[in-house]
C-alpha cells in the first residue's frame, strides 16, 4: 500500500495550493477538512500490514476533529459573519500561488539534503510536511480575514502532524493528544473571537485591530 503514499502526498500538495489560490471561505474550510481526512488516511496506509489499535484510534480521533468538528465550527462562524469571500488579501492570489510553488521547490531541495526519515518509503513525506507548515504560516501573514488566518493555523497544525508521522509513527499518545487539545481550544476560542469581532465591528479585517487605542 506504500505505493499509494505518493498519491496521498501529491493530493496533500494540491489541497495546499487550493487553500492558497481560492478566495471563497467555504471552499477553503472544505479544503482544510479534506486535508484532515487525507492525514487521517496516512497512518492506515503506512502500517497497512501491522496496524494496531492504538494508532488506528488516534487517527480516527484526529480525523473526527479535523474533518468534522473544526470545519463545522468554522462554517458556523463564517455563516454568522456573513462573509463569503476574502476580497482584498495582502498578497494577491496569482502571486500567492507562485510564491507557494517557490516554497515547494525550496522544501523539496531541503528534503533531499535531510537524512531519510522513519518508516516511509516516500521521499516526499518530510518535505511536504515542512511545506504544509510553511503554507500555514504564509496564509497567516498574507490574508486579512480572521477566518483565513485560522485556516492557516489549522494547515500549520496539519503540517506538524504530518511531520510527526514522517519522523515517528509511534509517538507518545500524550503528545499527540496534547497538540490536538491545544488546537481544539485554539479553534474554539478563535471561532468565538471571530463571531465577537464581527458583532462589534461588522467586519473581520484584522488589520483594523492594530490601530485600536485604549
Amino acid at each position, binding site marked *: 500500500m506504500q505505493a499509494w503514499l505518493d498519491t496521498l502526498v501529491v493530493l496533500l500538495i494540491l489541497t495546499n495550493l487550493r487553500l492558497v489560490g481560492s478566495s471563497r471561505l467555504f471552499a477553503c474550510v472544505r479544503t482544510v477538512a479534506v486535508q484532515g481526512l487525507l492525514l487521517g488516511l496516512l497512518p492506515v496506509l503506512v502500517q497497512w500490514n501491522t496496524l494496531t489499535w492504538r494508532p488506528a484510534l488516534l487517527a480516527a480521533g484526529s480525523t473526527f476533529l479535523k474533518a468534522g468538528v473544526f470545519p463545522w465550527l468554522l462554517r458556523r462562524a463564517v455563516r454568522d459573519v456573513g462573509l463569503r469571500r476574502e476580497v482584498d488579501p495582502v498578497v494577491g492570489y*496569482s502571486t500567492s*500561488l*507562485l510564491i507557494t510553488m517557490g516554497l515547494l521547490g525550496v522544501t*523539496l531541495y531541503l528534503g533531499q539534503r535531510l537524512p531519510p526519515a522513519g518508516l516511509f518509503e516516500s521521499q516526499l513525506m518530510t518535505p511536504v510536511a515542512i511545506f504544509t507548515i510553511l503554507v500555514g504560516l504564509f496564509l497567516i501573514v498574507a490574508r486579512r480575514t480572521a477566518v483565513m488566518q485560522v485556516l492557516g493555523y489549522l494547515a500549520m497544525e496539519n503540517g506538524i502532524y504530518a511531520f510527526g508521522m514522517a519522523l515517528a509513527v509511534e509517538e507518545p499518545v500524550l503528545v499527540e493528544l496534547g497538540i490536538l487539545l491545544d488546537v481544539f481550544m485554539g479553534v474554539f476560542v478563535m471561532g468565538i473571537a471571530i463571531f465577537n469581532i464581527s458583532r462589534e465591528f461588522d467586519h473581520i479585517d484584522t488589520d483594523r485591530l492594530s490601530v485600536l487605542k485604549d
Partner: protein
Amino acid sequence: MTVAAPILHVLTALVASPLLLGVIRRVKAWMSGRKGAPLLQSYYDIVRLLNKGAVYSRTTTWVFRAGPMVGLAAVLVALTLVPLGGVPALMRFQGDLVLFAALLGLLRFFYVLAALDTGSAFEGMGASREIQFSALAEPALLLGLAAMARTTHELSLSPMYDEISFDLVIAPSGAVMLVAVAFLIVFLTENSRLPIDDPNTHLELTMIHEVMVLDHSGPDLAFVEYTSALKLWVLGALLVGIAVPVRTDLWYLDLLAGVAGMFALAVVTGILESTMARLRLSRVPQFLVAAVVFSGLALVLVLR
C-alpha cells in the same frame, strides 16, 4: 511502424479538423435544446469565404495581408511536428517540442501584428488581451512538455508520446495526470474556448481572439477559420496523446483511437462550454497561473 501512418494522420487532420468545430457546436446546441447548425457548417463557411473578394482598409500595409497566410503556414508546420497518440509525427528530431511551441508563438505574433496594423482601438485591445493570456499559457505548455520529457527521457515529441502507457498515466505520483490537466487548460485558452473566451460573442468589449480578426474578410477570413480549426486539432492531439494512452503495435488501431479521442475531446469541450460560465476577465490570469502551477508541480515531482 509504416511510413503511411504519419501521412495519413496529417491528411486526416487537414480534412477532419473543421468537423471538430462542427461537433462542438452541435453538442452545445443539443445541450441547450436547439437543433443546431449542420455538422459540415464550417466547411460551407470556408468555401463561401474563399469565393468572396477581400476588402482591405487603406490604413493597412502588407503586414495585415501577411497575418492569415503566416498563421496558416505556421500551424501547418506544427501539424507535421505533432504525434497523435502512438502515431508518430511526419517530422521528428531532438528538441522539436521547442519548435512546436515557437510555431504557435509565431502564429500568435503575426495575428497580433495584423490586428495592430489596422489601427482599430478594439483590435488593439483584443491583441493586448491575447498576448497577456498566452504569455501565461505558454509557460504551462513548456513546463508540461519538460515534465513529460523528464518522465520519458525523450526530447522529441513522437518518441515521448510513444512511451506513454496506461501504467504511466495512473502512476502513484500522478505527474502525467497533472500535465494532462494543465494541457486541458492550455487547450481551452489557446483555442479561445469558453471559460476564458467565448467564440460566439459579438460584443467587442468582451471578445479576445475573435476581435483580433474582425477586419479580415473573404479568403483571409477563410484562412483564419481554417487555421483555428487546425490549431484545435494540433493542441488537442497533445492532450489526447496523454488522455487516451492506447498504444498497440498496429498503426491503424492507434490512428483510429487517436481520431476517436479527438472527437471525444470535442464532445467534452462542448459539454464544458455548455455547463461553465465565462470567467471574469480579471480572473482569467489566476486560472492560467493554476495551469502553470499544475505543470510546475508535475515537473518538480519528476525532477526530484
